[in-house]
């Protein structure tokens, strides 16, 4: 179960901290730059650390190259001696179950985007090296996706703190706990009314239990939930069906026909690994004994050419501040649709009849399909040329549009078109839920900025 962040509440809290009209005069790329940290200044000066500033001085540059050249030519000599002596450092106390030189595998779970995947982490003498799926976990079934595979790198991220740090000094857990208990008793005096927590979507039962415990002790504390990329729209969409915001796991092994509308369920869903396994199992002779592949229809699972063209037309007035001829846009969409199907449907038929793609020599009876396909490709080309012409034309002669020509719900349609530097001159206020598609577009005027304090 998920909770939606109280967005308007957060925005107002934010605006209290910042004076909205204090427009920053300089732009900054990082916090270090903003604070003009002297260490950062040095780093900026020699952006490629160590030898970088050598190159600006011709004399030291020559010296540098000479030394490097000598080192490179002497490198081969190193192979003539015996290897440098090595040390073997055994354990003080041999850990249980560990066989020296063999990895151990630890079962754990990796929370990701509102779900968790059961994984096995390979550990070589305490050093994690590889992540694979846990075959016993229902959301993994022994598989992983690119995110789990890449997660191992985050363990070696140089930005990751290796120890507990406070004010750039290493601290112990004991200090942290005693400091926290002091802070907590301070905060709990008035039932935690000044206490706020910012979390992402939590799926860990332990963390939920801990939150529950903390909430009992500080009933007036507030929890804010926010994810950079959220599935809350999908979860909310199930509310009319189930009465609560949940995401059900579909039993794909029972589905004969799968129709996916803008849903990359084999990649983005929390059940993606289980779905993939069940989807493939239906095509696998050995697992079921009978091959009953499910028919799969997909509408826009990821950016297609049609989708990106539609996207370009959607954002064009926001980007340029001018409108293109909409009738021409619809015509181009029709031409592209016809051209696309005329190009690829004959190819589909050809493949079905046994002709592989991209062969220049083929039997006589395939000729008519190939001609159809060529004609379709020409129409498709015209379909793409049309937007190129009228979109460029609209940049100079198009009708000027206001902030929200589409009467759209999103945040970005509340600022001017084209957007000013930093997107918003004043802090905007969200007055509606982000995904209230079931409601009509409000007749309200665009949100007014908050009065400055």
């Amino acid at each position, binding site marked *: 179960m998920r909770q939606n962040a109280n967005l308007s509440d957060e925005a107002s809290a934010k605006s209290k901290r910042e004076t909205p009209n204090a427009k920053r005069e300089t732009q900054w790329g990082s916090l270090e730059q903003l604070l003009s940290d002297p260490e950062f200044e040095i780093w900026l000066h020699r952006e490629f650390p160590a030898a970088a500033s050598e190159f600006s001085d011709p004399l030291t540059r020559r010296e540098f190259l000479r030394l490097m050249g000598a080192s490179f030519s002497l490198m081969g000599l190193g192979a003539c001696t015996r290897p440098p002596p090595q040390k*073997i*450092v*055994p354990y*003080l106390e*041999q850990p249980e179950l560990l*066989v*020296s030189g063999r990895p151990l595998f630890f079962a754990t779970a990796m929370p990701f985007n509102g779900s968790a995947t059961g994984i096995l982490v390979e550990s070589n003498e305490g050093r994690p090296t590889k992540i694979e799926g846990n075959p016993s976990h229902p959301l993994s079934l022994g598989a992983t996706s690119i995110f789990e595979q890449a997660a191992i790198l985050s363990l070696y991220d140089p930005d990751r703190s290796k120890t507990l740090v406070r004010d750039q000094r290493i601290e112990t857990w004991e200090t942290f706990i005693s400091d926290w208990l002091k802070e907590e008793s301070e905060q709990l005096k008035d039932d935690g009314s000044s206490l706020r927590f910012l979390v992402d979507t939590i799926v860990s039962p332990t963390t939920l239990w801990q939150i529950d415990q903390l909430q009992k002790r500080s009933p007036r504390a507030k929890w804010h939930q926010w994810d950079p990329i959220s599935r809350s729209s999908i979860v909310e969409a199930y509310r009319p069906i189930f009465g609560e915001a949940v995401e059900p796991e579909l039993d794909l092994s029972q589905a004969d026909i799968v129709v996916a509308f803008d849903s990359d369920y084999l990649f983005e869903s929390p059940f993606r690994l289980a779905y993939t396994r069940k989807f493939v199992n239906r095509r696998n002779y050995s697992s079921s004994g009978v091959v009953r592949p499910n028919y799969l229809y997909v509408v826009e699972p990821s950016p297609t050419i049609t989708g990106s063209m539609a996207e370009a037309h959607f954002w064009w007035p926001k980007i340029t501040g001018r409108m293109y001829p909409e009738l021409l846009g619809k015509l181009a969409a029709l031409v592209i649709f016809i051209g696309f199907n005329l190009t690829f449907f004959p190819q589909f038929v050809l493949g079905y009849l046994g002709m592989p793609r991209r062969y220049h020599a083929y039997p006589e009876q395939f000729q008519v399909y190939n001609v159809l396909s060529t004609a379709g490709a020409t129409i498709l080309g015209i379909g793409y040329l049309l937007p190129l012409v009228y979109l460029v034309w609209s940049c100079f002669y198009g009708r000027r549009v206001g902030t929200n020509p589409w009467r759209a719900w999103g945040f970005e349609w509340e600022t001017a078109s084209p957007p000013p530097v930093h997107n918003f001159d004043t802090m905007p206020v969200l007055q509606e839920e982000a995904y209230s598609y079931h409601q009509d577009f409000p007749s309200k005027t665009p949100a007014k900025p908050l009065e400055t304090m």
Partner: protein
Amino acid sequence: MAQIFSPGANTWFRTILVVVPLALVGGIFALYRFNYSSYATQVGVPIDQPVAFSHQHHVAGLGIDCRYCHTSVEKSAFAGMPSTEACMTCHSQIWMEAPLLQPVRQSLATNTPIRWSRVHQLADFVYFDHSIHIQKGIGCVSCHGPVDQMPITWKQETLQMGWCTECHRHPERGIRPRTEVFNLNWKPSGSFQNQSLIQQAHLRSTQELTDCTTCHR
């Protein structure tokens, strides 16, 4: 016109004619000898250790099995080195005051592991696995020599590629019954028996044993 060559040119030329080929041949020969010298291979050179541990005393004298300390030799690529606690299993009871064992006691007291010097060191581009050699019946003594006669451990063999392939080409010279692998005094009795051992161990063909990818993975 002045003379191009000085009066001594002929002598110089004759000298160069003799010295340069001699130096080339001599240099190559010297490098070749150097490669097999005990300086380069470290064969027979006792290596200094933080604790003057004697295999002679522990193996020949007390009869402790190799696997008591090198625990993972049958299961892993790495034979395993004893933890400080493994040493202290006995030495918390005997030789408790021996000055020789001071580094071991200090290791336990200060919670810092003992840093042993590696004696048998292979290049990083070689894949070597102890466990498979043990399972197929290659004795410890075949590569490590009479460890039970070494007061301070040294390297018995060069561990050069030529030495490895020698045995991979003729495994019948090194193979022994699985039960005698840890017996440092066992001697092969005849090549006929060894052929049957090769069959029992399901040893791969010489062709496969000498494939580049067997060791260079």
